[in-house]
């Protein structure tokens, strides 16, 4: 999940809902039943899901850009193929997620429009630049790693299509995560210069990765309702802590230093304690002022505009074909 729980909540959507239906719905959710697209659901539930799933889909799509930046420069053919396949997987994730959102009555065109107009959000992480090849490993390890932390609980999400999409996506994300880590391992073992490149990548990607979990629980408006609906299973801070606990030892195994002088292991709790996230930076990037926000949106807009004639041609062709088939049928009658 790359949704970071940011938009204002919109449970007060119009008409008052029938208390019995709401109660029956909640009982199904409480019983861990899956809600399917044709089932009755509260409007707030539907809206929350559309927002979350579409933000997730947009993140997959925009996320293709920073990694795509290195496809043409991958250092070996094997790495080039692996990176291309990974970016292709992310496109596939975008597709399943748009399809899951469509089951809730919103079209891919509408969602694309929201992304291109800047109305819809996507994960802040993709507004940072990939400066060296080590960034490709760092993204796999940290960004896919953080995504998995978020998404594994979503495999049990109460909404059937989302939970099924997540089961499939998680398998691929964990492959990406291992692949990214293995890439870095090869680099740190190969030479001191490469190890420095990896450390530099960690220095730049660490904090933005922690921001992927969204605002701290004290500032997050969504958690309680999303938890009750079993869309969310853990709070932002819980997930962030799990990520830190899993990742710090992995960094140490690579021989790297986490760029946080407050980082320390608490023997009593068994958790790694870490310093304060720069929430100003987080809010600034979310608001559109990160290093690459404008470039990312411009790249998506350009691809969309440049491809318009192709999409129009495909529609025109399929119409012509249908018309011809129709005409042939009339002629035969």
């Amino acid at each position, binding site marked *: 999940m790359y949704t970071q729980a940011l938009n204002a909540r919109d449970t007060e959507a119009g008409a008052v809902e029938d208390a019995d239906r709401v109660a029956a719905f909640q009982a199904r959710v409480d019983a861990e039943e899956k809600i399917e697209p044709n089932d009755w659901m509260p409007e707030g539930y539907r809206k929350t899901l559309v927002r979350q799933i579409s933000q997730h889909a947009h993140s997959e*799509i925009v996320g*293709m*850009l920073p990694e*795509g930046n290195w*496809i*043409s*420069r*991958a*250092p*070996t*053919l*094997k*790495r*080039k*193929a692996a990176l*291309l*396949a990974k*970016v*292709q997987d992310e*496109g*596939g994730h*975008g*597709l399943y997620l*748009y399809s899951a959102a469509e089951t809730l009555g919103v079209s891919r065109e509408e969602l694309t429009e929201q992304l291109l107009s800047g109305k819809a959000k996507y994960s802040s992480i993709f507004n940072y630049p990939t400066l060296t*090849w080590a960034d490709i490993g760092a993204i796999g390890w940290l960004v896919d790693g953080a995504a998995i932390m978020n998404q594994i609980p979503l495999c049990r999400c109460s909404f059937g299509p989302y939970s099924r999409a997540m089961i499939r996506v998680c398998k691929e994300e964990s492959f990406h995560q291992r692949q990214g880590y293995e*890439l870095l391992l*090869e*680099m740190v*073992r*190969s*030479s001191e*210069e*490469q190890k420095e490149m990896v450390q530099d990548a960690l220095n730049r990607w660490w904090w933005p990765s922690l921001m992927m979990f969204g605002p701290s629980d004290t500032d997050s408006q969504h958690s309680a309702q999303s938890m009750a609906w079993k869309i969310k299973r853990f709070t932002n801070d819980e997930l962030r802590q799990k990520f830190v606990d899993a990742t710090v030892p992995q960094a140490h195994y690579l021989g790297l230093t986490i760029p946080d002088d407050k980082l320390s292991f608490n023997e009593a709790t068994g958790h790694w304690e870490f310093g304060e996230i720069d929430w100003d930076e987080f809010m600034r990037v979310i608001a559109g002022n990160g290093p690459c926000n404008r470039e990312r949106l411009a*790249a998506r807009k*350009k*691809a969309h505009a*440049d*491809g*318009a*004639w*192709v*999409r*129009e*041609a*495909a529609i*025109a*062709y399929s119409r*012509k074909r249908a018309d011809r088939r129709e005409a042939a049928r009339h002629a035969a009658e």
Partner: protein
Amino acid sequence: MTSDLFTYTLRLADDAAILGQRLGEWCGHAPTLEEDIGLANVALDHIGQARNLYSYAGEVEGAGRDEDQLCFLRKEREFGNCLLVEQPNGDFAQTIARQLFFSAFMLPFWRKLTGSRDETLAAIAAKAEKEAAYHLRHSGEWTIRLGDGTAESRARMQDAIDLLWPYTGELFEVDGVVERLVADGIAVDPETIRDEWHATLRRVCDEATLTLPPVGWMQSGGRSGRHSESFGHLLSEMQYMQRAYPGMRW
């Protein structure tokens, strides 16, 4: 003899690697999400073919060069790919026309190469043939959609065909290397493919309401390392890491 086989295999590897490189440039920028995925598939097939072919070329050469040394550490005049595959992506129509011309040739080419007396080439060809069938279907269907789509798409598709047509002559070039390997039953005589190639293109273009240009003047030079101006830029990007950080493991 060994050196002919090396040159021949390397040319095939270069074709696949350079086309894979070009196609990879689309990823994230294609007209639809489905095409981001579709073009990446085609790119991946070519990169896979390049890996097998470079590895075999290195084996044949016997000088200890692996797939990456052959791909990333040779200079522009040493590359023997045809000019067609290195042509810039242009608009989507140009990418599709390039693929159509190439795959319409490569499908019968690989099919014939499966009968090569060289077992490794025959095995590589068997896998590549299936891939080429998909590439031809993909590019053929798009040619038809664009040709028989809107007035704009038709004009763009026709322009792309006219623009790239002069690069197709090179697919049929035969030099001493090819001649000798054909005589040994190792290589494919491209002349034996011409009719099928032309018939495929005619069928696609007819359905697409497009016109195939007359044979006319053809570009040449790729097989002997005389490339387009854009090719040096492609290499400087593709080879950047291996040049900037020589001798490291990735």
